[in-house]
């Protein structure tokens, strides 16, 4: 049945219904939303489905092609898993904003023009910040504000870029933009902020670990993937992205190794994975782009799975610091197993889904002759294995026994993790029948040949060996309750202290300026008030006689002027 229902509409309706229902009915509504949306999406026509005229521009809020469909399927799948994971909590705010958040992500990937995209982009920001605030701790509130400021900064930059771009080209369609114009650079900067470009990434590692256990799952699925989608759509083959992406793959590794909060480790690892995708987009060949979007697809599954596992740990124990955890496998064997599957996937072990997409990007780096880039990506892959593949499950579920014996998380949480884990394995073992047919660009690729598998296994084994050797010999950084300084230190410490010292210097000058300006200003307001205030000449109720005088005066003016 072909349908023209905008893909974001079911989620908006779902959000509305979620707000007014309670209990089991609400759970049913929430779970049904992505299912209904997915069914509608299966039958959707391709092409520009809806067009609206606004101020002389033709907007295309819904434009369907293969690239947006891939992300459409992905977001429905991700939303279903995340909703299932979150369905047990009793927080209307979180549920409603999560639905709106998913709707705006769908709005962004199906937007056919820059203005619709911008609107979705802003809604994405505004709805997601509530998932951080919903934790309701003072840290979360403050982190949420920092997140909001940077994200709105991204929105403003995007708007400026769009204005310049549209002014220069007269084209508002959401297609290839490139870096030929200053508008293009600004748009890329805005998208880059949302997908964690180096030096613009700090909101991600700052806010995601502060969000609610379930909110983090939603957050890790949508915002950054929308940015990846938009980069693929508009900046495929832009050279700077190769190097930016490469930098993104390896710099978070160092932070991730020394970080103690396991959800923050995941946030760093997320930047690392995004680096692979950005690099693939920069390479710009069909194979690389396929690699980038399929890696985005898989990242939603395995990163979601890892965030869910850590969220389960946080829900059951109230802690996420590596130094406070350990030995949980004894009472949470199922969660531990599922977490290990996620870890195996992110480490790109053959037969798990990370392998079938990441190797595409690595292969195209080689094909394009970027040896140095390839080497860095290889290095970063070992880093992933270390901090996400081994560190996360090891410190949470094994390592030294913390003495905690929490029970397994609620059934719906386990079920959500199970679905993600099964998908990781299924895509990993049979990519040719599951993921590859969905890919938008034409490129033939077979991950399971001897070279790929053996290279990868060698890499993983020696990498793993190195990690365990370091642990045995005490060379591995021990988990400590410490705060690591990242770029956000610049604006969380230096900027405020800089401002306050500047304030001390400028304060006397400013206050004398204010005093100087205040007197004439107050005088002006007093003057205005005298004539316009409630009892002023112009505002008080006039006697009829005076009113009539005005009529006569005006008539006289008209007659005299007409006479002249």
């Amino acid at each position, binding site marked *: 049945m072909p349908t023209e229902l905008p893909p974001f509409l079911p989620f908006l309706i779902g959000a509305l219904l979620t707000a007014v229902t309670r209990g089991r009915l609400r759970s049913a509504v929430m779970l049904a939303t992505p299912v209904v949306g997915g069914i509608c999406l299966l039958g959707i026509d391709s092409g520009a489905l809806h067009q609206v005229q606004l101020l002389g521009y033709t907007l295309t809020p819904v434009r369907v092609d293969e690239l947006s469909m891939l992300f459409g399927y992905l977001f429905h799948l991700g939303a279903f898993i995340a909703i299932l994971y979150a369905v047990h909590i009793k927080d209307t705010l979180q549920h409603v904003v999560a639905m709106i958040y998913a709707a705006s992500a769908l709005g962004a990937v199906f937007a056919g023009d820059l203005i619709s995209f911008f609107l979705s982009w802003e809604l994405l920001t505004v709805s997601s910040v509530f998932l951080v605030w919903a934790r309701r701790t003072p840290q979360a509130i403050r982190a949420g504000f920092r997140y909001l400021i940077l994200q709105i900064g991204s929105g403003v930059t995007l708007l400026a870029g769009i204005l310049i771009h549209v002014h220069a080209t007269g084209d508002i369609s959401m297609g290839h933009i490139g870096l030929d114009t200053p508008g293009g650079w600004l748009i890329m900067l805005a998208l880059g902020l949302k997908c964690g470009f180096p030096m613009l990434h700090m909101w991600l590692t700052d806010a995601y670990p502060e969000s609610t256990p379930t909110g983090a799952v939603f957050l890790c699925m949508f915002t950054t993937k929308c940015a990846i989608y938009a980069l693929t759509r508009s900046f495929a083959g832009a050279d700077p992205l190769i190097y930016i992406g490469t930098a993104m793959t390896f710099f978070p590794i160092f932070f991730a190794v020394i970080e103690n909060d396991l959800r923050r480790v995941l946030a760093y690892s997320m930047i690392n994975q995004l680096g692979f995708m950005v690099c693939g987009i920069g390479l710009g060949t069909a194979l690389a782009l396929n690699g980038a979007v399929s890696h985005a697809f898989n990242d939603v599954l395995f990163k979601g799975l890892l965030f869910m596992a850590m969220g389960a740990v946080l829900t059951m124990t109230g802690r996420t610091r590596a130094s406070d955890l350990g030995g949980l496998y004894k009472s949470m064997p199922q969660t531990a197993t599922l977490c290990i599957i996620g870890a195996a996937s992110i480490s790109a072990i053959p037969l798990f889904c990370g392998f079938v997409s990441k190797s595409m990007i690595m292969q195209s780096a080689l094909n394009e002759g970027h040896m140095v880039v390839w080497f860095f990506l290889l290095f970063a892959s070992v880093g992933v294995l270390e901090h996400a593949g081994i560190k996360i499950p090891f410190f949470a579920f094994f390592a030294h026994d913390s003495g905690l014996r929490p029970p397994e998380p609620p059934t719906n949480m386990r079920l959500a993790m199970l679905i993600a884990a099964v998908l990781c394995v299924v895509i990993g073992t049979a990519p040719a029948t599951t993921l590859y047919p969905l890919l938008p660009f034409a490129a033939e690729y077979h991950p399971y040949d001897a070279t790929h598998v053996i290279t990868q296994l060698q890499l993983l084994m020696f990498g793993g060996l190195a990690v365990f050797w370091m642990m045995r010999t005490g060379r591995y950084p021990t988990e400590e309750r410490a705060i690591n300084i990242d770029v956000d230190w610049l604006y969380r410490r230096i900027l405020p202290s800089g401002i306050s010292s500047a304030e001390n210097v400028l304060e006397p000058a400013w206050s004398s300026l204010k005093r100087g300006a205040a007197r004439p200003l107050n005088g002006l307001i007093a003057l205005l008030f005298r004539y316009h205030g409630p009892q002023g000449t112009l505002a008080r*109720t*006039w006697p*009829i006689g005076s009113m*009539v005088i005005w*009529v006569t005066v*005006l008539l006289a003016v008209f*007659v005299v002027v007409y006479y002249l």
Partner: protein
Amino acid sequence: MLSVLANDLPALQVVVPLVSAPLCLILARWPRIVWLLCLAASWTSLAIAIELLDQVLSGGTISYAMGGWAAPWGIEYRIDAVNAYVILIVTGIASVVMPYANQSVAKEIPADRVPLFYALLMLCLTGLLGMTITGDAFNVFVFLEISSLSMYGLISMGRDRRALTSAFQYLVMGTIGGTFILVGIGFLYVVTGTLNMADLAMRLPEVTQLRTLHTGFAFLVVGIGLKLAMFPLHLWLPNAYAYAPSTATAFIAATATKVAVYALLRFVFTVIGPVIAYQDLPFGEIAKVLAVLGLVTGSFVAIFQENVKRMLAYSSVAQIGYILLGIGLATVMGLTASMLHLFNHALIKGALFMAVGCLFYRTRSVRLDDLRGIGRKMPWSFGAFVIAGLSLIGVPLTAGFVSKWYLVQASLEVGQWPLAVLVLGGSLLAIIYIWRVVEIAWFGSPSTRAAEATEAPLGLLIPTWILVLANLYFGTHTGLTVGVANLAARTLAEGLR
């Protein structure tokens, strides 16, 4: 049956509300039936207005001879894009205000006077529609008096005792205005010997240089200026709006001045002709000066008001300045902006006064002090006020933005950038007086009245929100408004250059 009636739609447009007015008094024992009757009458009027606009858009000007007497001897109803559009505004507002009236009137008017109130409301609607639809200059005066007299009655029914004095003031001023219009029409009749507008337009060019004509035009402009609250003839308006019952204020503020503006446009452009008005006589310059004065003064006075309804009334004076400014520019673009603002301002002020009516329904006061903290007690009512306020300011995606945008463009088109700056400056002043209310009503600690208030009933909220949503709809879907306004402006400006 229907096809027979279809030929008489122009007459029915006026007759339906006219007949329902005495029926209101006959059925006075059953107030609910009276209300239903008025509701049906106003909705029927809207349906007729839509049909008429449709016919005009597809088939051009409609001429209807009243009672079968052909013009120029008989009274002719003449409908073109301009008045079809104004009729749509008036009936549209009436159709939204009428459902709102039910609960609001029951609360504010003593039970024995409710049928009287509805009868006057219907008469007022009759007068406004008649003024708009007729093609006969003397008929304009007759309908003007019908609408004015009923308006005095409506205003005097306010609970506040000052309503009586303000109604009396308006009566004196309105009568002077009506007399001036009559004198003006008399002068025109003296020089041409006809009262039919189309006929007048044909004969006047032969007598352009006559002093009689110029004096007649002066009387007409001042008389109509009184009715449309042109600065400095606006002095009756703030009190009349402030102390009238909520329903009456919402209806009058959204329609009466609009119809007066239409009458001005009709006399200036169709009857006198733009060549005489703008080239022989300096009507454009005077209009611009008065528009600017009204715009600035009205906005500043609104900032300092303590009574929200009075504040909105002064804001109306300022908004009429915008409309007059577009007329003063005398270009198609300027007229389009004015026609647009007629429509959009009706939506904006209708919504604002209805939202204030919702607040008044619970708090029994519209003083800012008493509304302290009301925003949190009545979020839906006050939310409506805020969105309509944004539209008044002219925030993009609201209706108010569209008309201001066109007005700025019209000013720039003729190279008068100081006017464009003034229009934008007026928006800044609007931000101040709207924000003042928002700050007090949303962030202030609740006053004793506000603390007891609960959300207004749905009977008030739904019509209010319909207008609020219309503000948003026409802010984004400008096809109908800009299209018709532009067509109307081009119809008016046919004689221009």
